């Protein structure tokens, strides 16, 4: 839950990158750490094995001035994707404000992606939360692989609810779509504190209602770094 400190005029928000093993969660944070130049960023901390597999979490703190009169501190976490670390994932989700769910576009990873999405919902329930309460965005990662699953298929599989959320194509290793995904999640979170009523503030993001940076490409339902149409 967001922590508001009126004394230091600071809001702290926790965003968790969730997804199956090797889908690119840590790569998102590594890329963000390189890409972000204006926001005040902390050191990227990885609690990983010798083989660079996330053991507990990765952590990156960003201080921004996106709210007038307040410093907004985004605390970005990843979870370990491997099935055996489910308890750890539950722990990292404690106090979460927003979620970025990374989907691996490899065909052969679809079952893992689906399992991870179901696991996310179970673990939110363990933390007395649900995707109805928590703003989340989808990131279809690894769009550069030759045999990537079509976006329509991914949309049907992961974004086929009454209220569809924002989805972004990305190639986290090159940086494509990474900042756009984070900004969408950040804005949905900040919109909770807006005086202006917004359909996205308490529940799922609705397509076409929020982030449009850059505008969706005409030939694709979900363009790199853009909101789902």
């Amino acid at each position, binding site marked *: 839950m967001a922590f508001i400190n009126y*004394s230091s005029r600071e809001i702290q928000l*926790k965003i968790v990158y969730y997804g199956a093993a090797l889908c690119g969660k840590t790569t998102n944070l590594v890329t963000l750490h390189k890409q972000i130049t204006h926001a005040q960023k902390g050191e990227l901390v990885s609690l990983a094995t010798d083989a660079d597999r996330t053991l507990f979490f990765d*952590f990156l703190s960003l201080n921004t001035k996106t709210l007038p009169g307040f410093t907004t501190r985004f605390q970005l976490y990843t979870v370990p994707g491997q099935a055996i670390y489910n308890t750890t994932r539950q722990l990292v989700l404690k106090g979460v404000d927003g979620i970025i769910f990374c989907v691996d576009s490899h065909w052969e990873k679809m079952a893992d992606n689906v399992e991870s999405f179901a696991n996310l919902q179970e673990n939110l329930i363990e933390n007395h939360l649900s995707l109805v309460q928590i703003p989340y965005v989808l990131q279809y990662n690894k769009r550069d692989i030759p045999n990537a699953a079509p976006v329509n298929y991914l949309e049907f599989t992961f974004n086929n609810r009454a209220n569809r959320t924002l989805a972004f194509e990305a190639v986290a290793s090159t940086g494509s779509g990474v*900042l756009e995904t984070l900004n969408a999640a*950040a804005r949905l979170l900040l*919109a909770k504190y807006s005086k202006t009523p917004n359909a996205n503030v308490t529940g799922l993001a609705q397509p076409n209602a929020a982030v449009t940076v850059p505008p969706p490409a005409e030939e694709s339902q979900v363009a790199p770094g853009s909101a789902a149409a």
Partner: protein
Amino acid sequence: MLTAEDQMAIEQRLGDFLAKSEAQWSALVDKGGNLFAQKGETGALDLSILSALAAGSFAATHELAKRLGESEFSALYHEGHGQHILMSALHHECLLVTIFGEKTNIGLVRFYSQQVTVSLNELLHIAREKEAAAGPLLLDGDFMNDTAAIT
């Protein structure tokens, strides 16, 4: 949610605790890794990282406790060569994290941390009641435009 008064009161308790225990730094952190208030000296340490790691460490220990049939390990102590960390559970999903060095010892720090824990719990309880009674924070702007982007 912490008001300026809450913050001052908590920092005062932490300051008293540091003076009595001769510890180096102490902080109120929630179990999600948010830093609420802190007092003392840590040099160039990144306090966000410190808070996140402390909360993660305590969470892992809490899970171990559950599996051993304990409701919670109320305190966790990490001993180093020159610096040590004591973490104590507070109410309302919070932790007291204390770093101390060779000027003092674990017995003294633990003794005074148990005292300050009681008064911090009272302050947290009051802050939570105020939070429940207060309206939500609402700000101008819809944050959906490019000017609000993280770059």
